[in-house]
């Protein structure tokens, strides 16, 4: 059970595939237009339940509860070996020019 007033993430469907605009490419027209937002839960609820939240700007938004206390999973990624070759190579090019 996720307690009321917990900061959560919700998800929902804005448009079903059948409701999508006529000018979207074929691959896009086969999938729904989805949304995600975050806010404080207005009532106790479980993951997967329909809920409403009070968002950062004070709006009320309904959706499906998907995550409590959502975290940022950003990072600098795995090493890209090619990238670390560039610096030394460029420094060498400049040094050669000095000689």
């Amino acid at each position, binding site marked *: 059970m996720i307690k009321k007033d917990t900061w959560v993430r919700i998800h929902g469907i*804005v*448009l079903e595939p059948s*409701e*999508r*605009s*006529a*000018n*979207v*490419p074929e*691959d*896009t027209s086969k*999938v*729904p*237009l*989805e*949304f*995600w*937002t*975050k*806010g404080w839960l207005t009532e106790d609820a479980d993951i997967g339940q329909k809920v409403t939240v009070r*968002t*950062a*700007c*004070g*709006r009320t938004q309904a959706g499906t509860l998907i995550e409590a206390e959502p975290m*940022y*999973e*950003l*990072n*600098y*990624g*795995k*090493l*890209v070996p*090619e*990238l670390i*070759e*560039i*610096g030394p190579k*460029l*420094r060498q*090019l*400049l040094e050669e*020019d000095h000689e």
Partner: protein
Amino acid sequence: MSKADQILQEKNVIMKKAVGIDYDIFEQDGIAFDYERMMRESGYTIEELQEIQSHFFVGNTPIIELYNLTKLARQYAKPGYGARIMIKDEACNPSGSFKARRASISVYEAKRLGYKGILTATSGNYGAAVASLAAKEGLKCIVVQETYDSRHVGQPEIVEKARACEAYGAEVFQLSVGPELFSTFLQLLKDTEYFNASLYTPFGIAGVETLGYEIAIDMREKYGKDPEAVVITNAGGGNLTGTARGLIKAGALNSRIVAASVDLSGLHMASDNAFNRKSFTTGHTGFGMPFCTNPDRSDVPRSAARPMRYIDEYYTITQGEVFFMTEALANLEGLERGPAGNTSLAVAFSLAQQMKEDEIILVQETEYTGAGKHLNPQLSFARDNGIEIKFGDPKDQVPGQNIILPSDPAMITAVPVDMDRLRRSYLKNLQPQMEGRELSELERTYLKDELKLNDEQLEQLLNGDD
């Protein structure tokens, strides 16, 4: 009519309420409208813009001479050639990009007109800029962004931008891929009655004029002249339009206005499958070309971003070349900046080699970097999504399939865009409104201004002669 299209019927009414501008009064005759009058009556003078921006501590960013990159470029130039390369470090703005300039005027206008909040649709630096300045003015803020594909996978750069907006207290309303973002945005505008911080209102453009103006004033003070060329990354056209207008207002009429975009040809911008196969979310041809040939495709009835009026030359560059230059900027100049802002730097590195040693080529922006918004996570993400990354000749790139880092800096080559092809495409887009009738004198004058042409050139283009 689809559900997404229903709200579009109300577009003009919602927008009038949300930007406080009656666009009808600027309409003239047929296809023509009075652009300069719109900019004059809805915009601000340079002095007013500077005053607003100084309140927000936006602008007056330093210009840095890139000695080592200049030296490197000269190794590939013939004797006496290789212009001095300089960069305006716009990452020094609050929220880390030149977009703070555009946001400052919109936020000021929203506050002045008494709006409770401000809304913007963007996946990029502009959202963070609006959120940051809205925080300073006590305005509520919602940023609508296209974030995920249908697998719920998001570009690291966009996910980072959402984090930044949330850090400034904004709500970030995220969507999956699709042009119906616009109808969702309109619905939110209608529901909240917030101000629309569009990138395409006169405020959104006027805010960049100070950038061009500062370039001219600072360069004259330090180097005694205007730069021979100013390279500007082009997407929606606002950066280019505003900078060029600022240079003109400062009297810098001889600086060449050079547009630069990352070549993403072949990737459909509204495609769910292609969404995560591109490593640049802005500054690319997917925005740059359509906004040149149809500027009024924006979210307001008449866009204030009209790049074709100002572009002297337009070049594309590949993703791999921009990533390479980003690494070069960090390693040779000690400036770690975000890759998107370095599109124009990669173009400048190539063009400098064709310019004389005593000439100056100025890159007019940098942007902040951080987890997500950095070349390493973007390339790591690309590799995880099946994009091949290798050293080679950037000419062999296929957007969405590979990213080719140049094996040698000599391979970095800006590829010219045929401006007349863009002009013909612009006219083709207006064809339905021009069909089967003579254009009025006012319309002809309008087209000459829009396409930067004289009478004869316009005639040739209209008659289809090359």
